[in-house]
């Protein structure tokens, strides 16, 4: 009998053979890996196994998972999780984004889709109550995010109305899709949703591009899956919303006010490719965005009352017509201060451009900032760009981002992501890699989120990124190998939003999880067993890595060189990340999780966590 919260069926799509199967996963696997990030890593291993290091992520055989979790749609803040072998970190990333696609596919009776193979022509998958089918997407290939969504909305609604005309109006479908960046397999491209949402980390946009898969669309009319204890679930649902409704600051400002305060207060905001982390530009304060650009001040995703999102629209001037969300803090930083830009309008434009092109709003601009610093350091010349790039000039970064998406000139190299671009440019310019890696702010290939560790005043500290199996992913940072196991690892596997998790008592969330699934799930069990199992599996896959790249234990389990340079300005001037603390806490982290001092899972741990199947491959790493 299907456990509560699950539709009970997953789709398995072989794009090469145009074959679609329905598969099921046993209760045991679901209890052990839940869904989303956890289940995706398990399914990836089951499909690839010991040949993992030889598998090129952009090869047709490389599977792409688009999974929900048992709590998706029911717990406030419904999201989808996209995963697989990451073309960026060579490990796996549970990359999530809020989208109606998540609850629509569950209403259609499926918990997720696994794609393998490569379609011979651009396609998109359409999932409805009557099953799934591959539709031609030739006319959508090459369109930017907004146009893709507009056309798909119209086309799918018309198709569904044609099939069942007299059931009343068909609502618009939920969908995830890629932009030009994904199509051209920009390594850190994102999987987009709702024009300005993105599964940004991991580069799964490139994975979709490599499979000629333009979009995944779903429209279901069934109920959300049954739960184990409905009455308890309803009570917990009301209680959770009451708590979320009480958080006035987050609801009113979202993260749109942090573009000023993370710089001015915690000195942890990337400025000109992280050369600085402090600024006090009042022109970049929340009200400067709110009054002139926010056309909707309370915008929420399915079943969420935090409504942290706002819609911005530029109504005058050069960029008239640009629409995006707020922008949220990460893009206020990366598409703003990281470029040396403190003008809200330019920031909104560059964020909207990143969404349209299908870039990840964090990784893409990180690479662009890296390129302009190389120009500042005279490693890259005007001729490489075809123009003279300047900090603080919106057109510079507008052109670089377009060049990256279309892989033109230097853009083709930069499209490989900051780490690989550094290696390539070193080769091109005849320099030692380390001379360039000095300016590359990434961990395990994944460009770091907009929270620095030097001031130690933000929530990101010493080993947040260094020990993280998802590298620079700021939404899943490591702490001590126990408390952080019930953080993003849990929310990305149960697949719901971090912002509706933090601030709600964890005991209440796990009661809710139990009421939904009926599993014997609680905070301690998750922190000591289920969480570590998923993270250990991810660690193993990450360290196996390959084929073009392998991370060296200990040496690559570290912050980027820049995070050890003293802060040049602001109240925390002179402070830097404490290397001694990093080494200590990294050792403690590995110990807690039962990994050896090089961070390789020991044989006993694998057995204890029921990960025996990894022993053969992992033993080679020891």
């Amino acid at each position, binding site marked *: 009998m299907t456990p509560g919260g699950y539709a009970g069926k997953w789709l398995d799509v072989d794009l090469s053979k145009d074959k679609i199967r329905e598969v099921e996963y046993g209760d045991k696997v679901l209890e052990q890996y839940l869904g989303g990030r956890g289940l995706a890593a398990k399914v990836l291993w089951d499909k690839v196994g010991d040949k993992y290091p030889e598998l090129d992520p952009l090869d047709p055989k490389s599977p792409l998972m688009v999974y929900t979790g048992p709590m998706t*749609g*029911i717990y406030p803040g419904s999201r989808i999780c996209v995963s697989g072998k990451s073309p960026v970190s060579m490990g796996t990333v549970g990359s999530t984004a809020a989208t*109606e696609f998540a*609850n629509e596919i569950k*209403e259609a009776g499926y918990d997720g889709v696994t794609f393998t193979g490569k379609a011979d022509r651009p396609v998109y998958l359409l999932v409805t*109550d009557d099953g799934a089918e591959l539709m031609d997407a030739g006319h959508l290939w090459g369109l930017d995010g*907004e146009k893709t*969504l*507009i*056309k798909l*909305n*119209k086309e799918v609604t018309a198709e569904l109305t044609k099939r069942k005309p*007299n*059931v*009343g*109006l068909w*609502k*618009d479908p939920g969908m995830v899709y890629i932009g030009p960046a994904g199509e051209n397999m920009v390594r850190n491209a994102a999987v987009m949703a*709702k*024009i*300005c949402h993105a599964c940004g980390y991991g580069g799964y946009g490139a994975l979709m591009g490599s499979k000629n898969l333009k979009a995944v669309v779903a429209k*279901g*009319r*069934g*109920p*959300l899956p*049954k*739960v184990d204890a*409905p009455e308890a679930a*309803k009570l917990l*649902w009301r209680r959770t*919303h*009451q708590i979320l*409704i009480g958080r006035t600051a987050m*609801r009113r400002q979202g993260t749109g006010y942090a573009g000023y305060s993370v710089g001015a207060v915690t000195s942890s905001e990337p400025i000109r490719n992280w050369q600085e982390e402090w600024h006090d530009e009042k022109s970049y304060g929340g009200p400067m965005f709110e009054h002139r650009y926010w*056309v*909707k001040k*309370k*915008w*929420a*995703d*399915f*079943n*969420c*009352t935090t*409504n942290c999102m706002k*819609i911005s*629209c530029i*109504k005058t001037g050069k960029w*008239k*017509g640009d*629409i995006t969300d707020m922008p949220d803090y990460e893009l206020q930083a990366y598409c703003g201060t990281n470029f040396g830009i403190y003008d809200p309008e330019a920031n909104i434009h560059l964020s909207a451009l990143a969404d349209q092109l299908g870039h990840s709003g964090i990784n893409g601009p990180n690479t662009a900032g890296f390129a302009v610093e190389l120009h500042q350091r005279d490693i890259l010349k005007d001729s490489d760009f075809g123009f003279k790039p300047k900090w603080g000039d919106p057109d510079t970064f507008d052109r670089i981002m377009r060049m990256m998406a279309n892989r033109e000139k230097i853009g083709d190299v930069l499209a490989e992501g900051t780490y690989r671009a550094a290696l390539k440019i070193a080769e091109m310019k005849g320099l030692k890699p380390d001379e360039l890696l000095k300016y590359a702010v990434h961990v395990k290939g994944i460009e770091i989120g907009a929270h620095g560790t030097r001031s130690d005043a933000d929530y990101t500290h010493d080993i947040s990124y260094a020990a993280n199996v998802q590298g620079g992913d700021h939404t899943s940072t490591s702490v001590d190998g126990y408390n952080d196991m019930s953080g993003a690892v849990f929310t990305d596997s149960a697949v719901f939003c971090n912002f509706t998790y933090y601030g709600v008592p964890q005991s209440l969330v796990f009661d809710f999880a139990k009421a939904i699934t009926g599993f014997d799930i609680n905070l301690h069990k998750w922190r000591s067993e289920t969480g570590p199992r998923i993270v250990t599996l991810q660690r193993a896959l990450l360290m196996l890595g390959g084929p073009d790249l392998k991370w060296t234990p200990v040496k690559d389990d570290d912050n980027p060189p820049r995070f050890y340079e003293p802060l040049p300005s602001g109240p925390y001037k002179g402070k830097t990340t404490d290397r001694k603390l990093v080494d200590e806490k990294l050792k403690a982290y590995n110990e807690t999780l039962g990994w050896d001092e090089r961070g390789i899972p020991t044989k006993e741990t694998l057995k204890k966590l029921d990960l025996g199947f990894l022993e053969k491959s992992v033993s080679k790493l020891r």
Partner: protein
Amino acid sequence: MSSIWIVRDYENCSGCRRCELACSMHHEGWMWPEASRIRVFMPFPGVEVPHLCAQCDDYPCVESCPVEALSVDGGTTAVIVDEETCIGCGACAKACPGTVPYLHPRDRKATICDLCGGDPECVKVCREAGYNALRLVHEGMSGHRKLFARNPVDVAKDLAVKFFGEKGEELIV
């Protein structure tokens, strides 16, 4: 029970769809957005339009039903569906100026808002969250109600122009 009506301020709608959840939990026992009597359309992100019965003064749906499965609750002025008699022909959906009624996914029976007998759940959760996109007013029957039974895509087209100016005209085709 004095005659009531649900006022809808589309620009306040956050798109959270809790109304769909509250309504389906009340009528169906569990979260079933597509069986909710109020459904939020989003032809373009940010342009959310809650779509529900407007209790027109001349009740075109009730008139059009070939088997008289629809009647009117004298108190709240809501349309009441007799599920046994309904044959799922969809006539009421076609007769409605805004195509509000739809056939229930489970049993293809006409599904129309019954105003929860006078204390609508959707209004409660919307007000609880402070959006006030749905507000309850105690007002008598009026000819203007029917004007609100509009196709949500047309409503969205107008809202898009109000939100985004000229760009709004390209967003919903």
